[in-house]
């Protein structure tokens, strides 16, 4: 038997990415937003008027759109009993990430400044 990695032949990483892409978007969005807000409120990167909410808003809108697109494309997997694990998990996570990023967006629309 071939002892080379079978994980590649099975598309292990492709399936992992397919299932967890919404979470990766959430991570990227959260890390960027938190990092920027923190950096622009510390002496080394202080921005008069507080964090750049326009930039944060654009990033949030892009992240929301990406998750919405993923959720829409995978909507069939939410109802299909025969859907594969990666498809179903990816669909559920797209909805969860959409909710989580939406919640962050709500915070962004209500709060500003560094105080």
């Amino acid at each position, binding site marked *: *038997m071939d*002892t*080379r*990695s*079978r*994980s*590649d*032949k*099975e*598309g*292990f990483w492709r*399936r992992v990415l397919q*299932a*967890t892409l919404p*979470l990766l978007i*959430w*991570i990227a969005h*959260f890390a960027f*937003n*938190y990092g920027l*807000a*923190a*950096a622009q*409120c*510390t*002496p*080394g*990167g202080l921005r008069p008027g*507080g*964090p750049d909410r326009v930039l*944060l808003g654009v990033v949030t809108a892009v992240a929301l759109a990406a998750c919405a697109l993923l959720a829409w494309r995978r909507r069939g997997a939410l109802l299909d009993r025969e*859907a*594969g*694990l990666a498809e*179903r*998990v990816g669909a*559920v*996570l797209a909805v*969860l*990430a959409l*909710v*989580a990023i939406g*919640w*962050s967006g*709500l*915070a*962004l629309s*209500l*709060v*500003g*400044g*560094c*105080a």
Partner: protein
Amino acid sequence: MKMPPNPAPRPDGELEKLEEVWRTPRGWRFFSAVNNTNIGLLYIGTALLFFVLAGVLALLMRVQLAVPANTFLGADTYNQVFTMHGTVMMFLFAIPVVEAIGVYLLPNMLGARDLPFPRLSAYAYWAYAFGGLAFFCTLFAGLAPDGGWFMYPPLTGMKYSPGLNADFWLLGIGFIEISAIAGAIELIVGILFTRAPGMTLGRMPVYAWAMLVVGLMIVFAFPAVIAGTALLELERAFDWPFFVAERGGDPLLWQHLFWFFGHPEVYIIFLPAAGMVSTMIPTIAGTPLVGRRAIVAALLGVGVFSFGLWAHHMFTAGLGVLEMSFVSAASMAVAVPTAIQVFGWIATLWKGKVRYDAPALFLLGFMFIFVLGGLTGVMVAVIPFDWQVHDTYFIVAHFHYVLIGGMVFPVFAAIYYWLPLVNGNRMSETLARWVFGLMFTGFNVAFFPMHITGLLGMPRRVYTYAPELGWNGLNMVSTVGAFLFAAGVALFAVDVFRTLRRPEREVGNPWNAATLEWLPSEDYGNRSIAHVDSHHPLWDKPELAREVEEGRHYLPHTATGRRETIATSPVAGLPRYLLVLPGDSWLPVLAAFGTAAFFLLLTVKLYPLAWISGAVAVGAVLGWMWGSDSPPPHEAVDVGAGLHLPVGATGRASHSWWATIIMLVVDASIFASFAFAYIHVSMRLQVCPPPGASLPPLMQALASCGLLALGSVLVWLARRGLGKRRLPWLVLAALGCALASLALDLYGWRAGLDPAASAWGAAVAALASYQGLHIILLLVLAPYLALRAWRGRLGPRSRATLDNIALVWHYTTLQGIAAVAVVRSMPLLME
């Protein structure tokens, strides 16, 4: 009826040989056993011992607080008692017990004979046991840590905690972290690569999914606290002022690092319990888990979201409102996947026909308590509410509802459910009702009033209070509840001992469960490794137990005359190769003893003895590695059913390659934490570098990076020269490059870097020290590799040592270059 894969009768003597290979040593040699069943049971037993010990400390606190102005415990003793209670519960009970149950259960649940690195499991257990017991004993010498389980500086800095107490926490926790990470690597590789043939990821039990997520969480969460403890210990030992505000440090840096570990840790504890619940509930309801795939998604969601919650422990620390709002939003978002699981469990109970026996009682208790804890969790995620209740008894109530409800009750349910695996006996149902009644009532009587005490303003961690504050009655009620709860635990312990002392009987499948751990099992696991073709193998194929017992599935014998299991592919569970496992050995025990002694002796400043212990640990590890990468005795073997598998694998197909990669991810995460510390400290400056500090010339740094890169090229050439005489010389030349790089760094830093002068200098020195530590590691590994080459122990089929050391080497090179890039980029960005 579908035929088993291996229908022919098995030859005589086959089973006896299998038993002989896997036999557990008797008498005092038992402690050299590395089999997951033995190590798992020792691990669970030790973790439960720490639960009892920490519980006794809790009772001491409750006695002290039962009445106002009490003098039962003095302030200093109380500080040590509450710190040790929290530390022992979190680090010596909660995390170890969930890993321990995983070590015990997972191989059988996945159809493997053992986990892929049994000696690593043994090492993880013994390091934890030796270190944990020694750490607990500091209490009897008045040397126990006293800064609270999260050890905030400046309280824990040298100025306010000059004794050894804080050092015991910092270094003591070090080996427990090593143990937890070793366990996590073992579990991840085991779950991905040693499942029974046919057990696809989709068919994998939800408990295994939970443990996979938890293993990955440990890999990313623990490095933050490892880095944090290293920084605080460096500050205490060498006056490197990472957390001293007057010298450019920031106490909040500790809080970031600690809680980046500390909050995911809550889920590291909860998710395994949730996995157990998702395994037990279908059994007690007699129906498949509702929303199984959504629950798997929820486990992943909780695992990832939990990393965005760390700063909700810091809402009163002065963070920006927008940052806090993001964290608040994430704290609320995590409730959604948690709720998916809870609704899945409720729907399963609703759909099935529930048997209200002991596990069911504890599972229902879990749901009631955990949901209440979750609701108060959402309350404290609301920033203004958190400002009111932060560090009050409301928080104490909240996290005990989450942790005892979310973890202790499921673990008790699990013990009732899985204890029959040990000797075939179930615990008493009558006593179980008393135990549950006492624990459930006692818990709510103890902790529910604390919500009110907290809202009335009682701060946590006070050793006493004035009688006129209005907290007297509520505290007395809490104390009564705590003793009721303890009575339940005591009764439970009596029943466990009673059950374990009863004569052994056939285990069978007492709950009519669907998962593989209920197949007939001995020291070798199952007689043959089942072929799995459904989500519920024991429900869908009732004859499976008989077939497996008769050796009609895979590997019904020892194909190489040694311990072995089948390695399968991570997605489809296709057989890939026969994984030969190491046998029992004292070396993991010796290595663990050396590790624990190293940390503890270092704490009490017995340096020569500490270094001797460290050398013993390294020597024992190298000794165990020396024999572990031998050429397999056969090219390929018949594992039954006409399936011929190669023995062992190399490169990316090898389980050891994956374990090394995971270890390097841990390593990179620790480095990232140090880099975060440097960026955090730099961002607080107006001018970077601060006045009086400077970086060495750029050319010098580039030369150092060039030497590292040259070393990597030489190692790459060495890999290509496997079997040739030049290999060891190339490796030693590469070591020369790495040492020259280190020397260049040391020379350069001497010019303008004083780590004690400012936090910025200390942060740069921390990054440089971490890189230096890796070069010292290479100093051990390179001669070891050269020696193996000279002794003829490297070959095309025994090249794991070479491949894995090469990975470490290339990682060190990348880390060195990354360190230079990070350190150099901050002054440029802040210009």
